[in-house]
């Protein structure tokens, strides 16, 4: 059994819609390094996609010349992904995280719903005019049992 090494990455990219897929794929690759399920992988991809899309669409109001920072870390089988923008920020975080709440008429307010249902923990730090940081945490199912089996 191979030992699971802790790992981390940092990604900084322009606020282009095309980069949502890029962030998703990079985090998925990081997660694939440990023994996890395909289902977990799919869920993590959706959660990351939601947070990065929000940074671009809401944080930067679709302005494509700004910067988004995504950091991914796996430590003792626990994945932590942070998605950060320096955009408009969120006035009322609790309201923003309410299912079906959206400030865009053509959106469904599902982003945080998916983040919450697919990750173990969703933390939001935001200040109006300063920006938003979303931290997503998830225990990667098989990593613990795998480490145990290795002993």
């Amino acid at each position, binding site marked *: 059994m191979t030992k699971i090494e802790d790992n981390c990455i940092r990604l900084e990219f322009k606020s282009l819609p095309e980069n949502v897929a890029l962030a998703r794929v990079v985090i998925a690759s990081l997660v694939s390094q440990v023994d996890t399920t395909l289902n977990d992988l799919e869920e993590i991809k959706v959660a990351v*996609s939601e947070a990065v899309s929000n940074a671009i669409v809401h944080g930067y109001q679709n302005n494509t010349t700004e910067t988004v920072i995504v950091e991914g870390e796996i430590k003792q089988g626990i994945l932590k992904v942070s998605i950060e923008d320096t955009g408009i920020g969120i006035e009322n975080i609790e309201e923003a995280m309410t299912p079906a709440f959206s400030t865009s008429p053509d959106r469904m307010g599902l982003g945080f719903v*998916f983040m919450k249902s697919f990750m173990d923990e969703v933390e939001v730090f935001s200040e109006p005019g300063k920006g938003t940081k979303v931290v997503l945490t998830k225990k990667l199912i098989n990593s613990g049992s795998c480490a145990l089996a290795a002993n």
Partner: protein
Amino acid sequence: MVTVKIKNDNLIIKVFGELDLVVAKEFRETVDKILMDKPVKNLILDLSQVSFIDSSGLGALLGRYKLVQQKGGKMSIFGANPQVFRILDLSGVRKIIPVFQTEDLELEKRRANQ
């Protein structure tokens, strides 16, 4: 990528790849232009080549559903892979837009002719 087929008053759209922010925009623009220009009524959406969908994709689907409804047409989805199907289900979109597991053209036709 999005491909377009028109059969009578049915617009059949096939989406390829990952239905996120980027592809959602292409899908929206393609469908809206055809709904404006052509005498089509119903929208049949083939998701068999879609490997990923997120809320931006779902929002685009629901937006088109509303447009089609306003024109008195019907919309349906088919071919979603299990992963995409699960998202359609969890989001509640499946309760609004009929989702078929496989391409059942007869069923589609009947629905469209209702």
